[in-house]
């Protein structure tokens, strides 16, 4: 065992990379839940985004195009969920599960010919002087553009939810859909938009795993990150900045665990690999005492009787 092989600067830099897929998916789901919808299909949308982004990036040679395709694929899959829950009034838990099961199958089917293929590389940004700074450079100024997009998205969602009219309407729909409907807001339309936004974000997160974090395609490669993102929303008490904090925390656990595996710590690999899931459970337990910040209409379907 050689802990000195772990470089703290690289550790923090790779922590940010590990956190980004979680952050993207969690921010999307946060908006969905703020509108009063519980979409448990995050894992399915992520893995679909992962393969869609991977396939398009490989075929076109452009990772950016891949990310666009991943967002579209995630949003498209989420429309299925929206049809089930918003139009067909199906149970949200069951519909979300079906989305995950379907997405896992679909991605495995689409991904068959991409196993073992190397995707085009997404370059890291390079700002003269700043990126070359010791310590600060690789941590703050040496990442790919999607990672920064995730942080900007967090800020944007925070601002929209807190200060814009759109955010106010979205929250109203999530807190009390009957009152929002009575005020003349189109509850189903707003929820559809939120669900699609969530799907696009989950798709982006998935593609980040297959194009940047790993980067290659293997079946079921999201390995529960979509579910951890769902837990993260609870952890964040539906607040965007806390979601960022949480994502970095979980990213940190993952990276430290991987580094310990590489350093050959005496703990068996399997037990280290369990740790992110166990920590998720522990965090959920600690935070689940306070449910006051959850949107009041969360998980309840809306049907306008008149």
């Amino acid at each position: 065992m050689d802990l000195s092989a772990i470089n703290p600067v690289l550790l923090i830099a790779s922590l940010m990379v590990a956190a980004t897929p979680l952050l993207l998916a969690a921010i999307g789901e946060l908006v969905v839940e703020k509108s009063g919808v519980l979409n448990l299909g995050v894992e399915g949308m992520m893995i679909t985004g992962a393969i869609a982004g991977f396939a398009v990036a490989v075929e076109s040679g452009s990772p950016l195009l891949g990310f666009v395709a991943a967002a579209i694929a995630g949003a498209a899959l989420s429309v299925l969920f929206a049809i089930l829950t918003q139009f067909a009034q199906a149970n949200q838990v069951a519909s979300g599960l079906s989305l995950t099961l379907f997405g896992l199958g679909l991605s495995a089917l689409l991904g068959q010919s991409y196993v073992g293929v190397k995707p085009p590389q997404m370059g890291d940004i390079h700002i003269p002087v700043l990126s070359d700074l010791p310590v600060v450079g690789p941590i703050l100024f040496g990442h790919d553009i999607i990672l920064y997009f995730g942080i900007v998205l967090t800020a944007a969602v925070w601002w929209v939810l807190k200060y814009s009219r759109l955010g106010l309407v979205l929250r109203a729909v999530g807190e009390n859909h009957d009152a929002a409907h009575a005020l003349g807001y189109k509850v189903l339309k707003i929820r559809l938009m939120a669900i699609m936004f969530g799907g696009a974000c989950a798709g982006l997160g998935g593609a980040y795993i297959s194009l940047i974090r790993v980067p290659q395609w293997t079946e079921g490669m999201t390995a529960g990150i979509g579910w951890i993102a769902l837990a993260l929303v609870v952890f964040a008490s539906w607040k965007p900045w806390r979601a960022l904090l949480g994502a970095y925390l979980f990213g940190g656990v993952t990276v430290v665990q991987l580094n310990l595996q590489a350093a050959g710590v005496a703990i068996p690999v399997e037990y280290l690999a369990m740790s992110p899931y166990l920590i998720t459970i522990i965090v959920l337990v600690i935070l689940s005492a306070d449910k006051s910040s959850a949107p009041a209409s969360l998980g309840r379907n809306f049907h306008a009787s008149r």
Partner: protein
Amino acid sequence: MIRLEKRPQPSRAWSMATPLVAVLATMLFGGLLFAALGKPPVEAIRTIFWEPLFGEFSFYYRPQLLVKGAPLVLIAIGLSLGFRAGIWNIGAEGQYIMGAIFGAGAGLAFYPLEAFYIFPIMVIAGAFGGWLWAMIPAVLKTRFGTNEILVSLMLVYVAEQFLASVSLGLLKNPEGFGFPGSRNLQSWDAAHNAELIAGTGMHWGVVAALIAVIFAYVLLNRHMTGYHIRLTGEAPRAAKFAGVNPTRLVLFCLGTSGALAGLAGMFEVSGPSGQISIDFNVGYGFTAIIVAFLGRLHPVGILLAGGLMALTYIGGDIAQSNLQLPAAAIQVFQGMLLFFLLAFDLLTNFRIAIGKPEVA
């Protein structure tokens, strides 16, 4: 203008018909999917639904129907109890794994003894393993209000890692030439869950599944706990006034489904699969969710749905070897089924009305 009108009572006729409509729709869209993959759609559908039952080699495939159907029914029966009460155990896959590990572990502790009591001990240990794993989300939910969906699912990944760990370590076959995986229980009579009638696929797991169906039917229709489960699902507020103890209900539903999933895992490891290995679990715990919904959360329905789902597994295998249909296509097919089922369920609770609504 097309509107949805809520029915005063859910339609019984549609409630029975939606699974059939969903299966037909899945066949149709599945056919389109297979055509898109460049496979002959009609032949693919025929291979999946006809070949295992009445085809040339059906004498081989029919027993498989019981072998694949038993774990699905066993797990789905347990899940349906919770689902009816709004208690969502979606970690049956993890409980299935733990049941297999506990069952096989308890048996292997006696190796190479030949005694009649080894198999019953394994059955109890298997059920206990699944129950224990399900008690984690149950206790956390009742004590701290933690979401059982996320906890039970996280525990699937933990169980998978644990499975890898024991098949490389604790339960590894000492005479296995270093390969991962436990001793093969099929070659040890005391622990082998053998066919009860040769050539039928009928093993103890099938018996257990049938008993579970009867047990669940009686429970739901003739027993107070079953009544409480139904009441909690259909009218949570009324259940509260009627004095239903939610803590007991959560512990009962999660515990029962965990124990049944554990049993399924134990019967699988001692019978058809034979050994604990890294890739022992094949997703029965997740497919059982589809089975539970397809069977309308009703014990008899689940029995039929389990048979149908087993058919798609076997037919899928045949289509894979005969038509080179990818295995993942069957997974998509099964996922599609749940989609259509949920979508068509609309017709149970709503009526589609054409024309302008009357002015109240």
